[in-house]
């Protein structure tokens, strides 16, 4: 297989894993003011993501780093063209991280309220921005030989906003299911009920997204030429329905697994549709950024492939170990016992 194709697959996998893992952190961050009845609840919610949020965010850094190493031209143009949007993403992620880390450091209501706000904004804004960014990547950026002709406001087109809404709802649902899996009693009940309430809205937006994609993008072209690929979007839909089915059966863990699959398959659906483009041009297909015209040399890709083959399995192994160590539910008791907890 060509190295470009290997790295295209890895690129898609990195984004998919990032959205699956940070999705529930972002979702929990958006939901915590709503789900928590008191400060202790908030503490529990933040501590459900406490041990893992930072490691999950690294998938974004790795996706960025992999784009740089494997497709430098795409990295350079994507980051400079989307300058202001990425700046906002950066600021909100910084605020989220600091808010999670510092909220519990001082026991004062005003202090905590300020950081709670930081966690909410720092979670909602990235979810929306990442959705808008990917919506625009799916439909193509206005770029040609003269450079970029877009602006921040142009990114907020209907299809971009629809994808943004899809991401926000996906992560809200994902986060509420995660909270239910990780907590007990009222918190768990309330969050699974929330997931149930969110689901119809998610379904509606997901269907709207699938329909709009046919008009706003050329993502379906690949599926029309290679029909077996349709199994990916079909799996996305099946997993989405699975969320509701498992929720109704009272199986939150299975419902959470379904939302994991939903997110991964939604990302794969988009990425497969892009192939062989990384970012299409909405003005002229001759200026699409493809895996061939924007990739690193074969030598660099070979080195990077070896690095990925050695280290990614190691990362996955210790990540699984960590999730096992912290598999128990977070309760008031465990949170209060550890003074280093958030």
């Amino acid at each position, binding site marked *: 297989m060509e190295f470009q194709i290997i790295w295209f697959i890895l690129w898609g996998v990195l984004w998919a894993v990032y959205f699956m893992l940070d999705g529930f952190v972002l979702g929990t961050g958006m939901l915590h003011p709503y789900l928590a009845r008191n400060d202790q609840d908030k503490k529990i919610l933040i501590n459900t993501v406490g041990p893992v949020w930072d490691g999950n965010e690294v998938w974004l*850094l790795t996706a*960025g780093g992999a784009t740089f190493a494997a497709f*430098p031209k795409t990295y*350079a143009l994507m980051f400079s063209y989307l*300058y202001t949007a990425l700046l906002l993403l950066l600021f909100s992620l910084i605020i989220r991280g600091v808010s999670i880390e510092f909220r519990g450091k001082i026991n004062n209501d005003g202090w905590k309220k300020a950081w709670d706000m930081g966690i909410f904004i720092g979670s909602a804004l990235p979810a929306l921005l990442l959705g808008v960014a990917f919506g625009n990547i799916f439909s193509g950026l206005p770029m040609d030989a003269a450079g970029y002709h877009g602006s921040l406001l142009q990114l907020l087109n209907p299809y971009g906003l629809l994808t943004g809404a899809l991401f926000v709802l996906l992560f809200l649902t994902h986060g509420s299911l995660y909270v239910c899996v990780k907590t007990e009693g009222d918190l768990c009940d309330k969050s699974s009920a929330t997931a149930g309430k969110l689901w119809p809205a998610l379904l509606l937006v997901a269907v709207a997204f699938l329909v709009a994609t046919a008009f706003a993008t050329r993502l379906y072209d690949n599926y029309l030429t290679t029909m077996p690929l349709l199994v990916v979007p079909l799996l996305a839909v099946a997993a989405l329905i699975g969320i509701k089915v498992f929720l109704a059966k009272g199986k939150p863990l299975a419902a959470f697994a379904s939302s994991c699959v939903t997110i991964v398959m939604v990302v794969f659906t988009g990425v497969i549709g892009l192939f062989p483009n990384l970012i299409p041009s909405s003005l002229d297909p001759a200026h699409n950024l493809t895996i061939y015209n924007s990739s690193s040399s074969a030598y660099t890709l070979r080195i990077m492939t070896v690095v990925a083959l050695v280290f990614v399995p190691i990362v996955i192994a210790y*990540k699984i170990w960590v999730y096992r160590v912290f598999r128990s539910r977070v309760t008031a008791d465990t949170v209060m016992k550890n003074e280093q907890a958030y």
Partner: protein
Amino acid sequence: MDTVALSRLQFALTSMFHWIFVPLTLGLSLLTAYMETRYVRSGDELYLRMTKFWGKLFLVNFALGVVTGITMEFQFGMNWAEYSKYVGDIFGAPLAIEATMAFFLESVFIGVWIFGWNKISKKAHALSIWLVALATNLSALWILLANGWMQKPVGYVLRNGRAEMTDFWALLTNPYGWLKFGHTLSSGYVVAAFFVMGVSAYHLLKKNQTEFFTRSFKIAAVFGLASTILVATIGDFHAVEVAKTQPTKFAAMEALWETQKNVGYNLVIIPDTVKECNTFEGPCVPGLLSYLAFHTADAEIKGLKAFPKEERPPVLPTFWSFRLMVLLGFAMMLLSLLAVIYSKRRTLEAHPLFLTLMLFSIPLPYIAGQLGWVVAEVGRQPWIVYGVLKTSAGVSQSISTVQVYASLLGFTVLYGALGAIDIYLLSKFAKQGPDNDLSALLKQTK
């Protein structure tokens, strides 16, 4: 200002801010790991309390190091797209490897360390902070190999309109990168040593928990002395590498205008950049500069005038930063030596003046580190990749001055607030001192 100047300013601001937190992380992770290991081995609860206290300060600092680090990766693409396109084939690799090899390890095991007190065995818990320390140091290695490549490009060929990697091994073994790594890493250790000594001095002056802080001070003093010697020694070899590979930077560091053989070292120099000479020089140690540059006393050193004006770096910031850094380095070496002597003799508390001095010396290694980066990066100008690509050619073409003004303003406000909060939290926790009640904690640790 144009987008080049603004982007440079923004990169300087964000990387220097990032560099407030990283050096302490590099050193304090090791010290905390050492303390916890002592606890695991001896069962002495004093070391557990040390781990907890210094670990708490470590975590406050660590958080800001992590979040300000993301900015660095984004900025190469956002502001320096032409650079990224041109060198991404070789420069992107170490960054991607850093993320895969170091960032994951660091961020995953810091979570284990914070939340694992009652979940994993004592040994596994101590191992997790060692892994964090290893990961932060590894991360420094990859980013400094990347920076080392910008200083001394190796293992590439100009092809297809860009720099393409031809020899990964050359990148990996670039002496410039390794010397920079050693010099920078040990400077981080000095920051941690002076931080621990300074905070301990504060409490010793107040006669607060003297046993706890005398022992903390002693560990830091030994670590500090070893590290200051290491910084200077590696720094000496680093300077030789600079003289060999970046003659313009070396000439600017020493304000050397004329090409000469057997150059002496002037203890005091006042350069005049308009007349391109030094208005004052002396007292002079004959042959010393030649010796420092090439480790032989009669070596020829190229002066600034040997290079066209547009290829010289700004002389004054490079020169003064370097002088002041070296001066601070020797001052810190002396302070560390005294610290070790007083610690060994157990007479720290009898020297309140020295303790006060150590308290106010906390900023010294921070300043020296920032000055070091000024020498490295300003001294490399006008090149972004020395001898290969000019900084002005590296900036993104699609960004406008308004965009960069706005982002620069945003960074200034956000980072200003974060810096204030960090200082507030650190000084609050540092003044609070260690927690005496360990009963709850001991129940937790199996």
